[in-house]
């Protein structure tokens, strides 16, 4: 069990603390951040039952995990933390986005990118790699978790689905849309999906083979795929790669059931939503059987020409959320744990009803 100290503050920390019991091979001993985050950090550390200073936490941990920077922060303190950890022989693990931001050249050999890849050998599974431009049929049923855009609680839903599958005794494999999925035993999304030099067609074939490899090697009862980013363009500055990732996934594999994650909606337009679900089935091949309303929303910031994501607190969600009269019970708020579990169970039941499925 690797003990992690997290740096710096990120809104996902609350989720990590809340789901700490589900981590696989890791535990979180505390979080550290910039001076101005003191209150937020205190709240997460309290949740984790940690009240030590940075030095104490650093001594206690096996590795420091550097998280994505969601606020374009200055990097000085990142390097201070890295150096302090190296000085006392601690490992540094970095998310790929954090690694992109930092210059880690001077710390070669000390830093590892957070990643979890299948151990099986693709070449052995796919016999003719030279002629490998073939799409394979995936025998295992697939649940896709996709969303309207970034930070709409896809990750939270994936953790929940994966842990419910584990709880019910199913053998499952999970390709996480969020690198942090690696902490929960999920595979990280392969890098080629994000590579702008790889053609769409190539991405489809390779993603199909990636899933096929997992399917053949592990023979899971079900595969959960978290689809990164979102299904449409938000603005000229946040265009979600014009929905390339869901299109790749939808073209690469046949999805049996999908969970759509939306941003927070105080009241759902159920009929409007149902119409869009039909569209998602047609466009991406995602049959949506559950709609999860997220705990985040967004704001277009014209002056900065970007979209800001707002991480809403429980109190706000409870206060402003109103269930629509004709709202089906598979349309749930992600913070409504019991209802969400029931909705996920219905997704499982649907797959169970399929003789080829679970």
């Amino acid at each position, binding site marked *: 069990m690797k003990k992690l100290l997290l740096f*710096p*503050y990120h*809104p996902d920390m609350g989720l990590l603390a809340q789901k700490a019991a589900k981590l696989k091979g890791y535990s979180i001993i505390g979080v550290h*951040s*910039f*001076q*101005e*985050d003191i*209150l*937020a950090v205190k709240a997460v550390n309290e949740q984790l039952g940690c009240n030590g200073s940075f030095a104490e936490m650093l001594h206690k941990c096996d590795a420091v995990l550097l998280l994505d920077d*969601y*606020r*374009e*922060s*200055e990097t*000085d*303190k990142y390097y201070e933390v890295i150096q302090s950890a190296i000085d006392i022989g601690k490992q540094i693990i970095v998310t790929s986005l954090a690694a992109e931001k930092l210059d880690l050249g001077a710390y070669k050999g000390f830093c590892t990118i957070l990643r979890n890849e299948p151990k099986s050998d693709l070449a052995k599974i796919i016999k003719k790699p030279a002629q490998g431009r073939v799409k394979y049929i995936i025998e295992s049923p697939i649940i896709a978790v996709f969303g309207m855009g970034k930070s709409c609680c896809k990750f939270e839903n994936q953790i929940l689905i994966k842990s419910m599958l584990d709880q019910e005794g199913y053998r499952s494999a999970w390709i996480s849309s969020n690198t942090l999925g690696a902490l929960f035993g999920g595979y990280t999304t392969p890098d080629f999906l994000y590579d702008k030099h790889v053609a769409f067609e190539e991405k489809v074939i390779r993603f199909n083979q990636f899933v096929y490899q997992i399917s053949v090697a592990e023979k899971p009862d079900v595969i959960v795929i978290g689809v990164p980013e979102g299904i449409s363009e938000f*603005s*000229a500055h946040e265009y979600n790669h014009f929905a390339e990732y869901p299109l790749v996934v939808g073209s690469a594999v046949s999805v049996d059931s999908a969970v759509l994650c939306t941003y927070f909606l*105080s009241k759902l337009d159920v009929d409007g939503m149902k119409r869009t679900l039909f569209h998602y089935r047609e466009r991406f091949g995602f049959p949506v059987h559950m709609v999860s309303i997220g705990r985040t*929303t967004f*704001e277009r910031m*014209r002056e900065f*020409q970007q979209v*800001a994501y*707002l*991480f*809403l*607190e429980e109190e*706000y969600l409870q206060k*402003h959320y109103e269930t629509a009269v004709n709202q089906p019970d598979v349309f749930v708020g992600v913070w409504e744990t019991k209802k969400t579990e029931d909705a996920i169970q219905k997704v499982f039941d649907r797959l169970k009803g399929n003789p080829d499925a679970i």
Partner: protein
Amino acid sequence: MADTNPIIFRTYKTYGGYYVYDRHTNSVITLSREEFQELQAVEKGELPTEKSGVIARYQEQGMFVPNVVKEIYHPQTDIMEHNAKRRLQQLILQVTQQCNLRCEYCAFSGIYKENRVHSANWMSFETAKRAIDFYLEHSIDTPSAFIGFYGGEPLLEFDLIKKCVNYAKKTIEGKKIYFNLTTNGTLLEDERVKFLAENNISIAISLDGSKKEHDICRRFPDGTGSFDIIIKNLQNMSQNYPEYTKNSVRFFTTVNPYMDLGCVMEYFRVNDIIDERAIRYNTMVFKDLKKELNFQKSYFQIQKFEYIKAFFSLVGKLDKKHVNPLVHTFIENAKILKQALHKRIELDPVIHPGGPCMPGIIRLFVRYDGALFPCERVNENQSFYQIGSIEDGFRLDKMRDILNIGKITETECKTCWNLQRCSMCSNEIEFHGKEKPGREEKIKLCAEKKRATEVELYEQSVLKEFGYIVETEEMRK
């Protein structure tokens, strides 16, 4: 009986064409003469809506939708609560209410009804520290920290500013910090400038043009003009810190009835100390004045001339460098309007006229004693604007009232043709001694806003007739 679901539009014509503004889609279309006449007949009630073939034809294209507005309610009202907890943008500290000048048109000179005047009140470091802490506690998700110093004349409390800058730099590790300061420029002596430059504190200096024009209003209590000392300070500053002066110093010129605008503009054009591009013109506020003030005739002539030049620039007949900064806002607004009309954003049943920004969140103004206000421009004496204190936190109920100023005239707003184009901040409405802005006063201002929109739409149409286009990538923003 009045139509409860009317189709709301506004026809108008220029010398070159006939137009209609459709409120529901916030768009303008060009009409034939016959179409225009028919829509005018509908507007006047001479032709029932359902009998208009023009309306029926355009309805097929999604326009002329019967009124959908059910409620006037600002769409950001609910999220304001969250933003007040986690996303404050800019902190402005009133470090003192005192000033070493006694400018004629100053908001605190006593010429405005009900507004405060200069006083010896100043902020303690304890209060400033608590204000910075309050700001940081309420801006966890904001990527950068913006801290401004305001007065009176903030440099009278230079030691406090120094302490605040040092405290903020010590307390803020991850965010980029941007400091700014608004000053009359008379106290920019070497030691102060050194500190400002070393800490890259952006400054905005009030300067009203040439010595003659500037000194008419901007004087010391003994009547001496402040121009010479400001220019001397500026000369020293640009000599010792040329890069800082070039990049971080801006000038505010308050256009007022006492000055000759032509002389002011000529001064900025020919002088070699101040870059004309660093000048921002703003106009003296005429609301709540104790006595009537009027601009000279030449002011309007100059405005018109510069306006025509801006117009020529927009249609590609004159390089923008020949257009005075005085009318740059006109150019920017024309672009924004063009983009807005292009988007055809349909009205929601729950909507609010434009104008109010999220009070206290975009700018949080902290008075010397720790009282919170939506920005530095509001009257601190009006309790309507006090949205809390650093001790007790935000008063969300008051913030909601300021944001939802349209509620005062909800009935009128629901059917007003200008709903999508209107832009009104509560600070523009006269209070007339009341505790909050009244309906009557707001309606008076509504008429002005409608007139302003009519002018904007007219200008936009004429610009189009003369070939005005906005680049494609700008249209996407």
